[in-house]
């Protein structure tokens, strides 16, 4: 099965004045279709850089990135832009919805930008909203929605159309725990539908929704969770005293 995302020995170096800053150092990461991978690390560890490189928003200094089996280095700038619109969905902490567009228009926007007719894009947007239980919010503007609803609209926009990869940066940021849990369930549901997801976070409760967790520090992946036995093993402890 082709991985939806593959990073091979990816490094990213910035120049800060005369100093070299190593934001990523030889990172290997594979995300299979249907899986959610969490990247956990403190601020400044390189996890957001990893996400922008995985999303074809930045190019690595060294190494190779492939999305849905296609190496980004072999693609033209236009092809990369098309891949970003069609195959990759983004979820940000602050939702990034356009305030002058309704929920349905926000969700349909990436499809329209990709050349789909307005009618078809709107129908696809409404389907994505319906899947997230937001049909009755479709014609509302972002400032008429609660924080939890705005993030659900942002997730609808990230999974609309034929998206293969969802990239989320602290997606439950300012939400309360119930809405945060709802957001993670929706991303997980999208994964069970076949997309792959990378969720970047410093929050262990958030990371624990993922199938795998990788730990990043100083630009390096330093550790990964092992596959664990099913949850039933939690319930065979000693009897209560």
């Amino acid at each position, binding site marked *: 099965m082709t991985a939806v995302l593959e990073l091979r020995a990816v490094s990213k170096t910035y120049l800060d004045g005369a100093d070299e800053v190593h934001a990523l150092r030889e990172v290997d990461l594979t995300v299979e279709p249907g899986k959610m991978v969490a990247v*956990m690390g*403190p601020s400044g560890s390189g996890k957001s850089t990893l996400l922008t490189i995985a999303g074809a928003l930045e190019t690595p200094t060294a190494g190779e990135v492939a999305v849905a089996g296609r190496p980004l280095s072999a693609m033209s700038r236009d092809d990369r832009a098309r891949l970003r619109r069609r195959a990759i969905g983004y979820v940000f902490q602050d939702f990034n919805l356009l305030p002058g567009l309704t929920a349905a228009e926000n969700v349909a926007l990436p499809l329209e930008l990709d050349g789909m007719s307005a009618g078809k894009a709107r129908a696809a947007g409404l389907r994505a909203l319906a899947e997230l239980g937001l049909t009755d919010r479709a014609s509302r503007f972002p400032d008429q929605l609660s924080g939890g609803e705005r993030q659900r609209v942002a997730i609808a926009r990230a999974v609309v159309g034929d998206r293969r990869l969802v990239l989320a940066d602290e997606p439950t940021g300012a939400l309360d725990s119930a809405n945060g849990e709802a957001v993670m*369930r929706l991303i*997980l549901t999208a994964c069970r539908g076949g997309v792959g997801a990378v969720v970047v976070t*410093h*929050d*262990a*409760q958030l*990371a*624990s*929704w*993922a199938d795998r*967790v990788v*730990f990043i520090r100083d630009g390096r992946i*330093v*550790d*990964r*969770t*092992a596959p*664990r*036995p*099913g*949850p039933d*093993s*939690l*319930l065979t*402890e000693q*009897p*209560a*005293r």
Partner: protein
Amino acid sequence: MSIRHALLALLSEGPKYGLQLREEFEARTGEVWPLNVGQVYSTLQRLERDGLVESGDDAEPGPQKGFQITAGGAAELAGWLRTPPDLASPPRDELVIKILIAVRLPGADVHEVIQTHRRYLVELMQQWTRLKDEEGDLDLGLALVVDAELYRLDSVVQWLDTADGRLRRAALEPPAPSGAPVPRIRRRTGLRR
């Protein structure tokens, strides 16, 4: 955990048999804390001795013996619900002790020790979250128990993150001058360098 008070709570709903008490205890705690029937009967005997429950007849403890709560038992339960558990003094937490030892042990990499525990805790949290995802919607008691466990484990991960950062900063800063008197609060809580 107080089985004694859990049984009083179940009996406050009406008279019940021992086996029924065991089944209801397990169901209401999301079946996270299994209870053997011997524990139920020995606890009921002690509750009866203390006048907090009474049995319907003089039968031997067994499946046919019913129990009900007394007025004293109801008062005991009401008092217990409002009594805070002892959280005032720091527990002798094994993980805290391991990190304190790793800081001073020659040749030990405390950051690697911290990461080992962080990974293990996140793996445990993945299992609890999976359980909540699969069964939490069906069982409110289980969802409450899983939330409590996730917050408990999360607080340990947060402590490890904080300790990791504090140790990294300390490694870059000069050590504090020695010979300063130990603050009184430290002596009182039994914490020593």
